[in-house]
């Protein structure tokens, strides 16, 4: 298969390798927020 002479270089990250963004922790829960 011929893909052409002028080739540009890439690094492809599959979707599952995307960095995981961890959300900032929220304020501490109050006792009434805690499920029974």
């Amino acid at each position, binding site marked *: *298969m*011929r*893909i*052409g002479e002028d*080739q540009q*270089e*890439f*690094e492809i990250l*599959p979707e599952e390798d995307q960095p995981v963004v961890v959300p900032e922790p929220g304020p501490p829960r109050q006792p009434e927020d805690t499920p029974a």
Partner: protein
Amino acid sequence: VSDADPVLPELVVGAWRGYRVWRIKGDRLTGWWHTGYVWAPGSSEASCDARRWNLRGRHARHPGLPAPQRDCACGLYALEEPWDFAGYLPSRHFGVSSEANAIIGVVAGWGRAFRGEFGWRTQFARPVALYRAAHLDGEQVDRIAHRYGCQVVEGRSELLGLADQHA
């Protein structure tokens, strides 16, 4: 990645999809030109067996480096554009000389990559779908698809739709 640093490859997210042709060998897929290269179920990783000569003999073209590399032909290949299904393979496009054991499909590629005008070559790839052409043994195609965990398609629109999706 800025234009000021041409050394670094451009970073993209999400595997590319394209079209390619394999040879059928039993219930396995091999490369078209490199028939000794058997695609692995799941993802396959490119290797390079290119050699160059110097005064001390024959050596690997880019020892210790992963495939594909610039100025080499290594990598797992795919083409950007589909073809007309007219009962034949477009030999001028795919380099196919005989349909007898040829199977076309959609492939996803990722990792190191080089992209040209007509297609790309990557470090990793996996079959996404196989086209069950009329000249093929349908049951054999089903077995191969099961082995590789990919779909079987029979229509042009279905294949084109899969190629347009992200992996």
